[in-house]
């Protein structure tokens, strides 16, 4: 079914190794329009490395990532035009107000006006704090501001690395709802990494498991849950099948 849909992200032979032996090795992945793709793996499996390459923060040793057909290593501006992202901890300029932080980003997108900035602040529940500086924000609030920044330009693809970091239960539910809302109403494609298995199960419709820098399997959540009681069982069995049993999934 998915094969007939538009390929949004194409990851080919992506390899990046660090001096300490960690990194990613020959990753291949296709993400289609409308996917809420969950990138599941333990800490240190290579999720962030892959996502940093996808967003141009680091360069791969080999391979490439194409977003809407544009290579991130060669045509960065075109590739990133439709992309919003949040990598690791949501960063913000602590000397600018929440509103001004978003205004900085809005300048790169002619169609984003002040109304849209207010809209995303409302969407992430930060509108009350729009004139406050993120210096005084809690981790969860900073994360919300990062999410507001990621969806500001109504991107067609949103790449989120551990978006639930630092969020309380209410925050997690809010963000999950926001992701599902955007996927349904604006056909936004999501690429979300997480080590929180339960949340991936609830949010994502396709799941790729990464372990020790390699992709073990990619499957739809629907199919996984047909064969396994929970996503956790599937994850453990995938990892076992590949010869390593983690002491804990996260």
């Amino acid at each position: 079914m998915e094969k007939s849909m538009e390929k949004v992200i194409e990851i080919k032979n992506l390899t990046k190794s660090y001096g300490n032996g960690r990194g990613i090795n020959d990753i291949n992945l296709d993400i289609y329009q409308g996917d809420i793709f969950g990138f599941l793996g333990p800490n240190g499996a290579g999720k962030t490395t892959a996502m940093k390459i996808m967003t141009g923060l680091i360069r791969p040793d080999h391979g490439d990532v194409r977003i809407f057909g544009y290579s991130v290593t060669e045509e960065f501006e075109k590739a990133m035009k439709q992309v919003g992202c949040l990598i690791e901890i949501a960063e913000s300029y602590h000397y600018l107000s929440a509103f001004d932080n978003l205004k900085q980003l809005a300048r790169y997108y002619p169609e984003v006006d002040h109304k849209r900035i207010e809209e995303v602040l409302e969407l992430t529940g930060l509108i009350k704090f729009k004139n406050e500086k993120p210096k005084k924000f809690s981790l969860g609030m900073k994360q919300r501001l990062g999410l507001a920044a990621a969806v500001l330009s109504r991107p067609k693809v949103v790449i989120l690395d551990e978006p639930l970091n630092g969020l309380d239960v209410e925050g997690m539910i809010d963000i999950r709802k926001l992701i599902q809302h955007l996927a349904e109403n604006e056909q936004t494609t999501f690429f979300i990494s997480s080590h929180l298995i339960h949340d991936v199960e609830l949010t994502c419709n396709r799941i790729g498991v990464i372990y020790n820098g390699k992709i073990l399997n990619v499957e739809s959540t629907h199919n996984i849950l047909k064969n396994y009681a929970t996503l956790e069982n599937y994850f453990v069995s995938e990892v076992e099948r590949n010869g390593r049993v983690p002491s804990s999934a996260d």
Partner: protein
Amino acid sequence: MAVFQAALINEVEKLYKKKKVLVAVLLSLAVIVIGQIGIIGVRSGFGLRGTGSLEFPMLVLSVVVNTVLPLFTALVTIDSFSGEFSQNTMRITLTRPVSRFKIYMAKITAIILFILGALLLLLIFSMMAGFIFNTNSATLDSLGRTVFSYLVSLFPMLVLALGIVLLANIFKSGIAVFFVSILIFLAMKVLGLIFSQYSSLLLTTQLDWYNLFLVNSFPLAKIVRQFFIMLGSAIMLFTAGFYIFDKKEF
């Protein structure tokens, strides 16, 4: 071009929203006030003439190009590069649809605008102080020369800024960049004294190159030579700095 413009406006906004620029302005004014008080003291205490109205701005320039101006340039440059590297705020811009070259250019242009602003501010205030407190000896010719001296001082400052940009891309810590910059600056001063016949090659000598324009015989060959030495240094420093910046992993 629109993307570069957006990046430049962002860099300028970040500059003026920080307190550092205000401190720079206040310190520049302090230099003028202290200088003026010193001159009035000399005049009334020793009965010396001190300076004429347009000599005072030149006196101020000769002091600031070797002291506060390089210092502010260093602070602003280090803040713009090392500061953003260490706080990870560099990622905010890097993951937007703007190439690294445009970001690098925008940062440097913002620094140039800052230096130009500081020079113009010093020029205006020192001229005002000069006209108010000192004997009037202004002619249109000397006024033109004064303004010109301030403007051409931008060029060696640019070379200095590019040198610090390179250092900021080499060293991780902003403090290290600051100390290495000061050490190199002092070393150049000393070398200029020891090997005075080669001193025109050194940046610290070039900071005073505005003097060449004040000589009545107008040493065109020397001015052109100095200009090309600075241009060459600027191109090399710019390229080396960008090479490292472009390869940097965030």
